């Protein structure tokens, strides 16, 4: 077996390489940043227009009330789950290969949740009253409706966002101290000094740090499953044909991990190039990541088939009609594209020659996410176009450019947050990469007789 990272990197070299990413990325970093800002500008413009004029400009209508906003909301919520998988679940399972890449994955979790939260806002007809959804003391004793899955959503996302921000931050403290000690002046010095909370690396601090980190990791694991289950219950709890499916929660969670893993592959390749992380984001790690993605893709395919089968063999004629409509109606090209990108294309990842071929992986991982976005759209729109009530069957509804602009801009928003994060904070965990090197050196010292890699 190949080694995940070179064992002979000196600790000082690790510091130097990672700190360099805070200073001088390749020039393409600035190009990406500018494009991202321009994309955000498009979305802001769309939102201002929609806010002023009304939701009608999004071109939804009275039977087709939800559209791309909700689909993209699910997409971003889903994308966040893999960061937690990598940073919390694999942390508990002592999968060491995750160490150089979990930091940016966790940042991806946080930022995609922030993006998802925005979609809830732009979706609301009266954004200025959004606080009604929260339970807060008021003179009329009006509470939110605790029966509604949307309220559960609000709680789930708020919990998930706050705890993953905390997790990201706590995990960064030792690295922030390294940054503090290596930078001599300016706002960065102040920022790192405040954020590293006086970290000195004493035994007592390490002990407390480990305990805290482990506790938050344990707390996050049920969240990684529950948050998307709750998003799934927005649909599973309703009575719309195509939504009223018992298997939706696991199906959504699998889809979430799937699109998240694909996104991690994409970001892996981008970061590796932009910040010159070739030593840390290595091909053996990529290979493990790709295999993980492949496994999850197959789980998702399986759950997808289960959903189709349970609808097909169930007694619910309207749900069956809905499935036939999806596969043969006006949405058929998107439906089959989803099947192709989601279930057929990942079969490529089973072949060894593609598992480390970065250009191909870059394209494939983006296409996988296109497939997963289509999946979310195929959950939302066909159900509205072909629901219980024939009079409301409306196949002509097509989202307006305002909606597309907002979806487009959300990618810019995410990229902007993510890229700024990677420039300001160490996106590779220095202290954990050092652990990898350290453990390997120890193992070599004590077990010289063992053949093979160790």
């Amino acid at each position: 077996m190949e080694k995940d990272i070179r064992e002979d990197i000196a600790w000082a070299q690790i510091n130097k390489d990672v700190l360099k990413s805070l200073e001088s990325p390749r020039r393409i970093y600035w190009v990406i940043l500018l494009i991202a800002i321009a994309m955000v500008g498009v979305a802001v413009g769309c939102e201002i227009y929609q806010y002023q004029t009304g939701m009608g400009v999004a071109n939804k209508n009275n039977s087709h009330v939800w559209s791309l906003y909700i689909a993209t909301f699910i997409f971003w919520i889903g994308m966040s789950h893999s960061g937690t998988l990598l940073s919390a679940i694999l942390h508990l399972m002592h999968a060491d290969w995750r160490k150089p890449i979990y930091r940016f994955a966790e940042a991806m979790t946080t930022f995609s949740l922030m993006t998802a939260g925005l979609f809830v806002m732009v979706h609301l007809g009266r954004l200025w009253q959004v606080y009604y959804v929260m339970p807060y003391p008021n003179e009329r004793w009006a509470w939110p409706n605790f029966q509604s899955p949307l309220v559960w959503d609000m709680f789930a996302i708020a919990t998930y966002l706050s705890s993953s921000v905390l997790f990201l931050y706590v995990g960064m403290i030792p690295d922030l101290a390294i940054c503090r000690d290596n930078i001599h002046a300016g706002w960065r010095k102040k920022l790192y000094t405040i954020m590293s909370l006086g970290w000195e690396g004493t035994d007592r601090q390490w002990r407390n740090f480990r305990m805290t980190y482990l506790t938050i990791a344990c707390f996050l694991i049920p969240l990684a499953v529950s948050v998307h289950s709750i998003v799934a219950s927005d649909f599973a709890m309703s009575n719309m044909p195509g939504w009223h499916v018992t298997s939706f929660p696991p199906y959504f969670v699998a889809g979430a991990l799937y699109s998240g893993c694909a996104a991690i592959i994409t970001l892996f390749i981008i970061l590796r190039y932009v910040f010159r992380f070739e030593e840390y984001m290595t091909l053996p790690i990529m290979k493990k990541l790709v295999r993980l993605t492949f496994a999850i893709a197959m789980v998702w395919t399986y759950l997808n088939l289960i959903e189709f089968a349970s609808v097909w063999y169930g007694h619910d004629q309207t749900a069956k009609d809905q499935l036939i409509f999806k596969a043969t109606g006006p949405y058929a090209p998107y439906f089959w594209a989803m099947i192709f990108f989601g279930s057929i294309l990942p079969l490529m990842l089973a072949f060894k020659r593609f598992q480390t071929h970065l250009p191909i992986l870059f394209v494939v991982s983006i296409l996988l996410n296109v497939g997963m976005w289509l999946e979310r759209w195929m959950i939302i729109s066909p159900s509205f176009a072909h629901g219980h009530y024939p009079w409301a069957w409306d196949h002509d509804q097509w989202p307006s450019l305002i909606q597309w602009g907002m979806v487009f801009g959300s990618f810019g928003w995410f990229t902007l947050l993510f890229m700024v994060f990677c420039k300001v904070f160490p996106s590779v965990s220095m202290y954990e990469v050092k652990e990898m090197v350290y453990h390997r050196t120890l193992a070599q010292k004590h077990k010289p007789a063992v053949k093979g890699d160790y």
Partner: protein
Amino acid sequence: MSITNLLENWSDFRHQHPSEDRPHLEYKWAMSIDLDSCTGCNACSVACYAENNLPVVGKEKFAHGHSHHWMRIERYWDNDGREFADQGAQFLPMLCQHCESAPCETVCPVGATNHTADGLNSQVYNRCVGSRYCNANCPYKVRYFNWYDYPTTDNVWPAPMEQQLNPDVTVRGKGVMEKCTFCVQRLTVAKSDARTQGRLVLDGEVQTACQQVCPTGAITFGNLVDPLAKVGKQWMQQQVDLNKDKQAKDAAEEAVKLRGYRILEELRTYPSVMYLEQLRESDI
């Protein structure tokens, strides 16, 4: 409710109707619509526009599905099994069914849509945040969203048109959901008049706007609790039970001529509107 109780009486819990928890003591507003009398003239729809200050959105927005017809006449052209296709469309007046177990009520995140003690499905405009989940979960799609700011910026009532607005009904701003209220403004007045005289509202004392204008008298509206009410008699005659999800008509032998049914009853929404099936030529 203990676990054993839950397990032993599972079927009861599944069939239990919400009004058994909170029975309607004085009023339960309900409607019946005779499809055989309906000529599809759209008078009910027009009356509703006038009574409830519904914005007339114009041809273009109507085509986009942004219309606000709380009462709409649906046309069905399907000729399958019809003996006289040349008779044209079949009509179905569709309005909020005021379900006793309304799917829209449970999903609203802010509790803007509620059930009143009178069995109405109410909509609180001030509380609505516009998540549109209620419409998504409404099987009849009878909820209408304010896609634009009709009263002010969109100017659907240019002066002096605003003079004809009904002062008893609010106009709705952008971003809130609205739907048929069974003309709740009229019900409130009638109830308060009756209360000052120490009695309940009599049958026929209050009419909905659509009922009032229907030239063929296809729409009957009244208090289902009142034993003298015409609507209650019709429901009884057709053996339609508010608290059941399957009516006698479904089980009846062909000899028994029952016409009463409720739409999408199998979803257990328990609607408050009963429809009387159109008579076929062969039935007469």
